[in-house]
């Protein structure tokens, strides 16, 4: 679920939509949490969707460490990438604001953490823009991302957290919730590195979307027939 003080706005036909703050949101606020209505789909389930829906999932879902597609039910799914994002991920279920966000400012996140299947050119225009965002960025940059998240988390207990009642915590998130329930922020957060899905390397996946799934493996009966024909 995306923070209530946000709205969806159309940016341009090349970028599509984006999520914008409608009020001041202080550093340390959870901008998004995973909730029970965000749809979790296996690659097979995505593959079985009618083409017009498969396109939507490939465009607006992200991939979690287990290889599942997470398709947010609300406009959280339209958050764009930035090389200097307004939030960092924590655990499986949180995006935390790493700086104060002003009304009208676009909310953004780091796609390099989201198990993208291939690189894409970035034109976020932020200082330090990497120009290209790829699956290998995580391994190189996770210490910076971890440090930003840890810094922002110090403020998590002292700002309003309207999304906390709605979170669907994963195994790595319970410790965070317990600490916050005590009004504390004394916790060592899970590393971004743990969010990496094994086997995601640049260029191994066919398809148009950043999270496009590989084509289904060739069907066995057909291969058998071919083998038989060759033998004859």
């Amino acid at each position, binding site marked *: 679920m995306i923070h209530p003080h946000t709205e969806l706005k159309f940016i341009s036909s090349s970028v599509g939509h984006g999520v914008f703050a409608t009020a001041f949101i202080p550093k340390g606020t959870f901008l998004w949490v995973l909730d029970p*209505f965000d749809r979790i789909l296996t690659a097979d389930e995505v593959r079985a969707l*009618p*083409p*017009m*829906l498969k396109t*939507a999932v490939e465009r607006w879902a992200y991939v979690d460490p287990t290889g599942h597609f997470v*398709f947010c*039910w609300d406009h959280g799914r339209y958050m764009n990438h930035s090389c200097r994002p307004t939030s960092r991920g924590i655990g499986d279920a949180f995006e935390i604001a790493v700086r104060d966000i002003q009304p009208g400012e676009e909310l953004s996140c780091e796609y390099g953490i989201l198990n993208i299947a291939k690189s894409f050119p970035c034109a976020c225009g932020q200082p330090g823009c990497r120009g290209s965002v790829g699956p290998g960025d995580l391994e190189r940059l996770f210490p910076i991302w971890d440090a930003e998240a840890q810094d922002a988390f110090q403020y998590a207990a002292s700002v309003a957290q309207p999304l906390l009642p*709605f979170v669907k915590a994963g195994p790595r998130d319970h410790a965070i919730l317990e600490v916050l329930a005590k009004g504390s922020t004394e916790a060592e957060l899970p590393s971004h590195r743990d969010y990496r899905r094994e086997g995601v390397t640049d260029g191994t996946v066919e398809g148009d979307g950043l999270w496009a799934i590989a084509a289904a493996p060739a069907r066995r009966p057909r291969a058998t027939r071919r083998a038989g024909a060759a033998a004859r």
Partner: protein
Amino acid sequence: MIHPDTEVRRVDDVVGVGVFATALIPRGTLTWALDPLDQLLTPERLAPLGPQWDTWLDHHTYHDPAGNRVLCWDAGRSMNHSCRPTCGGSDLGFEVALVDIHPGEQLTNDYGTLHLEASEGFTCRCGAVECRGIVAPDGSAWERWLPELRDALALLTTVPQPLAPLVTPAVLRAGRRAVGLPATERRRRLHAV
């Protein structure tokens, strides 16, 4: 999924947003189809949710005839009520344009057909000549729109249908048959759908 020639626009602070046509959607066009990304929320699935979800459920879901709530994944969930709706049929698993919907006009439903609970009635400000003033649980809402629905369904094959890939012929057939049935029989059939 909602018809592709639509967009969500802010109406005002009271109504919030609504779904507007961006191109002509002729009468008889499928305007919405229940699809695999829409979520059927059974009473069992909703039972563990705390009271913090009550407002959310009211805002974003509707009731199906079998006692579930339905959460549409896209702008379908932002369709507003009108006492003179431009779309109808939700219980059939799809909706159809009851009139020609021109660019800039809103896609609307009669919420009376959406199995409102007693607590979900509201004061209507749709502005239609037929406006009932108060929209409340309404057993006769379906009957009210049956003639329009039948006429619109008769046009199904005469207009472009971008949502056709999401509606199986069996669902379409069942829907067309259901609108010709007496009320009790129709309700029984729709539960089966």
